[in-house]
């Protein structure tokens, strides 16, 4: 059984992945939420880095976090550092609209696994999910 038309990663294995979207722009939140749903995921969506950190402190953990860089209250760099300092082992993927190499580098150094320029595309999500499934246990998917 395959969900949707274009989910090339196995949608069945994706159902168990927990995902958090962190972005202050409602348009981006809506877009990324829908992208992930298209791949069979049910993301949680928050508006800034502090909300992500608060969730983690409450004991919630995620397999994947999509982290925007520019956000009020606590930005993506600060939030990523904070999460790593607290021992988060989630895959954290930075999503930024500022593409300068030095800025992306600084964001990566905060503890990201990958960093992409906005907006996300199907290929990027496919890549991320494949990486996640590879890092998970060795059960064969499909």
């Amino acid at each position, binding site marked *: 059984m395959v969900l*949707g*038309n*274009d989910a090339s990663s196995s949608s069945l294995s994706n159902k168990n992945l927990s995902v958090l979207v962190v972005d202050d*722009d*409602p*348009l*981006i939140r*809506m*877009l990324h939420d*829908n*992208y992930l*749903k*298209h791949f069979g995921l049910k993301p949680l969506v928050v508006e800034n880095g502090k909300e992500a950190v608060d969730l983690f402190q409450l004991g919630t953990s995620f397999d994947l976090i999509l982290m925007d860089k*520019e956000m009020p209250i606590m930005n993506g760099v600060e939030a990523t550092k904070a999460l790593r300092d607290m021992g988060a082992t989630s895959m954290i993927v930075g999503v930024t*609209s*500022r593409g300068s190499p030095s800025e992306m580098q600084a964001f990566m150094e905060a503890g990201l696994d990958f960093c992409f320029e*906005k*907006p996300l*595309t*199907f290929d990027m999500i496919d890549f991320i999910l494949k990486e996640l499934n590879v890092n998970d246990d060795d059960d064969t998917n499909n």
Partner: protein
Amino acid sequence: MDLVQLQRQLVNYRTSLYHEGFLDEQFTQLQELQDENNPDFVVEVVSLFFEDSERLLNELSKALEQQIIDFKRMDARVHQLKGSSSSIGAQRVRQLCVIFRNYCEAQNVEGCLKCLQQVKHEYSIVKTKLESMFQLEQQILNAGGSIPV
């Protein structure tokens, strides 16, 4: 106009929007996200883009009317506009935002004013075009047809 003609008209119209650079690949991605579970997705996202843009363009106009211009704040607004226009594939608006940001960084008032006018102009064109396209789609649906990909 019959259904087939309407559908053909829509396809031609959409193709022209890509050819003329109003829309880019990202818009196609949006369409691919729309399905039976989410039949109004594109219209919803684009409506959000319209709201965001109008608010930002108003704020930018006000910012440029001030005695002392806050270029940093303006840059943040243009950055947001660049982000949302690129998310829906509004290519020309996005490209103008890149230029606009350069003028903000250079603190060039004349350049900013000129750019703002251009962005407003391009925004209103793409808004009209997208609304026309949605209207065509609605006509097709009302006639009992489906939207061609």
